[in-house]
């Protein structure tokens, strides 16, 4: 490995982090990340207000189920998905639209190194935003319970491992969707087409043949989620489809599968960035 790569990647990450965290056009990503925090906070506040004779707060078990639902349906499938779309698509395609990508391409940096730096910056930004959100959501859920209940849940139940799993899933989701949208930003001019296709692909994952199932992010993430949502008899078919995990795999396999998917997508991106041409007039 060339010893210059590390300082070059560091310089790229610093520049990109500033752009990603403080960009006005990225504000919606914060809203998306904080929406479930707001939801759980409001729910907790309402429950605390109603608390009193004749009304007890719901049990921690029920709340972990609600949290699992919001986490799987909204947070992973929509918030992280679209958040990563906004962050990672901007890394290359956004700069092509801004006509500023040549700044990097005119520096003595291998294009693969530039891509690695940009990916790392996007990953850091998305991980910070979304793991913070996950942590705040959990805090909002547990806030209404007294300390004995919480410590019992954390240390005698499997609370710590659940929280760890949710944080891990958040990080892996950022890695998975990040690599997908980085590649999509290099391969497609219009982000809406690949985003819609991937969203549908992820949604129909449970009904895909076994081989195709593995070419997705949600397949691995679902297997890592610590609480599975029971399919109730009256559940809407679409909801049941999204919840079901017909072929769950072990945690290690899920992590390895996701990392393999990430490596494959990064290889595609690296190949594509080598051939990338700056022709802003056609953007």
């Amino acid at each position, binding site marked *: 490995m*060339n010893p*210059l790569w590390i300082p*070059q990647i560091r310089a790229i990450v610093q520049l990109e982090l500033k752009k990603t965290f403080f960009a006005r056009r990225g504000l919606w990503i914060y809203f998306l990340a904080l929406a479930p925090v707001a939801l759980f906070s409001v729910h907790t506040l309402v429950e605390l207000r109603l608390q009193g004779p004749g009304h007890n707060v719901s049990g921690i078990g029920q709340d972990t189920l609600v949290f699992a639902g919001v986490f799987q349906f909204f947070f992973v499938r929509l918030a992280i998905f679209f958040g990563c779309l906004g962050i990672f698509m901007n890394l290359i395609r956004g700069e092509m639209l*801004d*006509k500023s990508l040549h700044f990097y391409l*005119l520096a003595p*940096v291998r294009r693969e*190194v530039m891509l690695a730096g940009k990916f790392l910056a996007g990953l850091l930004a998305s991980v910070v935003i979304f793991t913070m959100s996950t942590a705040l959501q959990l805090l909002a859920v547990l806030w209404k319970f007294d300390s004995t209940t919480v410590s019992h849940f954390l240390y005698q139940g499997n609370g710590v491992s659940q929280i760890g799993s949710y944080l891990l899933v958040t990080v892996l989701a950022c890695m998975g969707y990040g690599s997908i949208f980085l590649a999509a930003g290099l391969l497609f001019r219009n982000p809406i087409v690949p985003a819609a296709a991937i969203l549908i692909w992820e949604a129909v994952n449970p009904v895909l043949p076994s081989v195709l199932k593995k070419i997705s992010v949600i397949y691995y993430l679902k297997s890592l989620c610590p609480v599975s949502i029971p399919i109730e008899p009256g559940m809407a078919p679409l909801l049941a489809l999204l919840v079901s995990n017909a072929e769950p795999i072990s945690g290690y396999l899920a992590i390895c599968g996701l990392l393999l998917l990430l490596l494959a997508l990064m290889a595609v991106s690296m190949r594509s960035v080598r051939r990338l*041409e700056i*022709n802003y007039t056609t953007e």
Partner: protein
Amino acid sequence: MNKEIVFDDVSKFYGDVLGVNRVSLSVPPGITSLVGPNGSGKTTLMNLMTGLIQPSRGRIRILDMTPDEPEKLFRLVGYSSQFDSFPRGLTGYQFVHSYLRLFGFDRATCDEYAWRAIDRAGLREAAHRKIGGYSKGMRQRIRLAQAIAHNPRVLILDEPLNGLDPLVRAETIAMFRSFAKEGCHVILSSHVLHEVDIISDQVILMSGGYVVAEGNIQEVRSEIHDQPMQILIRCARPSELASRFFHDEHVVEVRLHHDRRGLLVKTTDPERFYLSFNAIALDGLGIESVSPVDDDVNSVYEYLVGSDEVTR
């Protein structure tokens, strides 16, 4: 190490649209101007040299390097492009400094190089202002500062004098000259032909994606045999001098200057003209000066491409 920039049968097509076609060039050190109207292929050649686009066919070598090795190429090459966009929210100083950070230099070195380049571009006072608030000329200068910040051996500049006021323009031209004097390549594009005349050691004339001529402008002019060379002779007795030229078969036209103190001679063979003129000059006709009037870029371009193209 090969000190030349070499294009070997290079073509670039944007889909069906021609960028440049069958370009073969060998550019020596010094100031080289790419001349041609908009759409003639100047920027395409520059983008090909810097690897921002890849040739559809042919090969390019910059001092023995290929444009697809940016990690080596941009240690020796600086490119001030025409793209008027910058990473968001940066000041002039941050722009140059962060560019230098990509070289892997430590902060102190980046700081030193950045200020040196900013000073050469005359932007010290505005260095801590956001580029978004810069005027067109200042943006041009900060791009120039970025291009020279790492002391490149090859400086590629797309319309570098656009938007500069006359004083800065003169300083910038002097800077290009000092680079060329040090043995560097300074390759610039321009459609302001009189400017090119002043600056360039050699020119590359382009039209419609083709190189129509290259080299020292006087040499290029002497190769255009179908257009007689025009020579202005300032003298006290122009009518008498004119009568002496009528005997020379290579002189195709002689015209008195409107102030009647000079003569415009058109000759198909400048060498023979100067030989016979040397003999005539000794006869005491009060000759003050002799100068060719159509060996500038403007005339050469007009002869080769046509007057419509020059002004386009």
